[in-house]
């Protein structure tokens, strides 16, 4: 039997070795890791440009060791369009929260997707505006209490949570659209495959790819990390089903 040791797990090259500012139990960090792993897998760290949005993930440049442009709230897909049109041979991704992408930035995401811009969008849905203190988001679940829906989201006046991955999958310009969660080892492994696939779509020049990641925000949900994690399974996944809604690369 060989005693040689093989390294099977390491810190991604694309991620800096720094302390995180995210709250305990926040899943932004997990998603950062998956994005970094995808960049490493394709060896594109040196030719990737990230576009940060406004939300808890605004410090993208503090974690990823890549070139980064910071966009105004909601405008990351437009900024990324400008970047990608200049650097057509580079890898360009946006990383956006649900307030950023599904409320103030709806126009930009729909039209970047519809133009089929060759970018990858990582969309972190935590059913709330994390950074600003837990206000109601377009993804807030029916009856969910937030700081601006203190009696619970009333769908008759506040409307319904938007399912972005499904919505975008209806656009001709979209090559790949999927939803994942990072609440269990099994789901994380699946999320890793999907994020990698989304980057592969771009590396191969196949068009616009979109991954929605269901994410816990223990702080603004008023839960401990374990309870928040359990809520992803019990409340989020039933409304926001996991799966691939469009994959035009499939033969």
């Amino acid at each position, binding site marked *: 039997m060989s005693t040689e040791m093989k390294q099977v797990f390491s810190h991604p090259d694309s991620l800096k070795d720094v302390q995180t500012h995210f709250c305990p139990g926040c899943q932004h960090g997990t998603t950062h890791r998956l994005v970094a792993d995808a960049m490493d897998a394709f060896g594109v760290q040196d030719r990737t440009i990230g576009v940060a949005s406004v939300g808890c993930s605004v410090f993208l440049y503090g974690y990823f060791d890549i*070139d980064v*442009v910071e966009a105004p709230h909601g405008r990351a897909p437009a900024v990324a369009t400008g970047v990608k049109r200049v650097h057509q041979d580079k890898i360009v991704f946006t990383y956006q929260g649900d307030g950023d992408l599904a409320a103030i930035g709806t126009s930009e995401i729909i039209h970047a997707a519809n133009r089929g811009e060759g970018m990858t969008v990582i969309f972190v849905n935590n059913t709330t505006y994390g950074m600003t203190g837990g206000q109601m988001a377009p993804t807030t679940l029916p009856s969910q209490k937030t700081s601006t829906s203190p009696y619970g989201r009333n769908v008759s006046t506040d409307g319904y949570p938007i399912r972005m991955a499904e919505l975008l999958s209806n656009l001709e310009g979209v090559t790949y659209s999927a939803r994942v969660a990072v609440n269990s080892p099994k789901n994380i492994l699946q999320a890793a495959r999907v994020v990698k696939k989304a980057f592969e779509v771009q590396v191969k020049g196949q068009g616009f790819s979109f991954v929605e990641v269901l994410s816990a925000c223990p702080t603004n949900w008023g839960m401990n990390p374990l309870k928040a994690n359990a809520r992803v399974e019990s409340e989020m996944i039933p409304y926001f089903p996991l799966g691939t809604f469009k994959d035009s690369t499939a033969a």
Partner: protein
Amino acid sequence: MQKRLLVKGNEAVAMGAIEAGCRYYFGYPITPQSDIPEYISREFPNVGGVFIQAESEIASINMLLGASACGARAMTSSSSPGISLKQEGISYMAGSELPGLIVNICRSGPGLGGIDASQADYFQAVKGGGHGGYHIIVLAPDSVQEMYDLTMLAFDLSDRYRVPAMLLGDSVIGQMKEALTPHPYISPGDLPAKDWAVSGKDGRPQRVVKSLFLGDGELEEHNWKLHRKYQELKDKEVRYEASDLDDAQLVVTAFGSTARIAKTAIRMAREEGLKVGLLRPISLFPFPEKAFLETTSKVKRVLCVELNTGQMVEDVRLSVARDADVFFYGRPPGAGSLPTPEELLAQIRKHYKD
């Protein structure tokens, strides 16, 4: 002999931009500037340019931000209501020290207003139209030739200082046709390398284009840095046209299309024997403060004419010698509100003193 063409002001902007090497245009249709995207969408395929008709002015300015962050010479154009929508993006560009050209072919307002020539966006342009206390470079052409020339200059100044630049025209300058002598663009040659632009880090340290500064003292220092650039612009990059000032008893000041009418009125006044001169700011930011101070150390009477109810006149008043008198004549923009030369001549007579 150099070739002379009869072109529209808006087309001259597009021609100047292409000649200056701009290969990225992002915009949204609005009268009276749509000739610019129309011309560019027609000509860009011949030069390998990227033209995007965006979903909104907000998206356009952010596409410009992205292209500019990559170091590309890029532009957008719009008219007043669309420029209002761009203000957040312009503020981000100013904060991120990104160059880029924003063309505003102004129309009248407020609100939907009308499509007539207007100078009512002066404040918005020169005082930092968005949040956070910044300035952009603002150039105001008064002819089709200047639409061409100043477009080139705007790109150069913007690249040199890493400050967004605006070409401030209006529907008269944008829509009228007159002779243009196109000339090749000559790069200043000493423009700083864009060693801040993102491209994928490729072995070098990470580059970040951002306007967020949270560390203790960081944002204050950043704002002082921006302030020093604005001071440098005031020291080095002021542009204005002065004429007939030597013996003048009254100096008329106006910018853009109003200056054209003022020039005719001044000529008529001279024919009557009135000693009247012209001081026309071409750079509205940086404003020709020193030129006004120097001129009014001799000429003590200034008549400021604008197509609004008084905006540039505030900067004139701040700049002139303390014992100079500043008079204002303006009309709010709208159909039929463009003053006639005779109207301005009457104002000249009214304020003239030998």
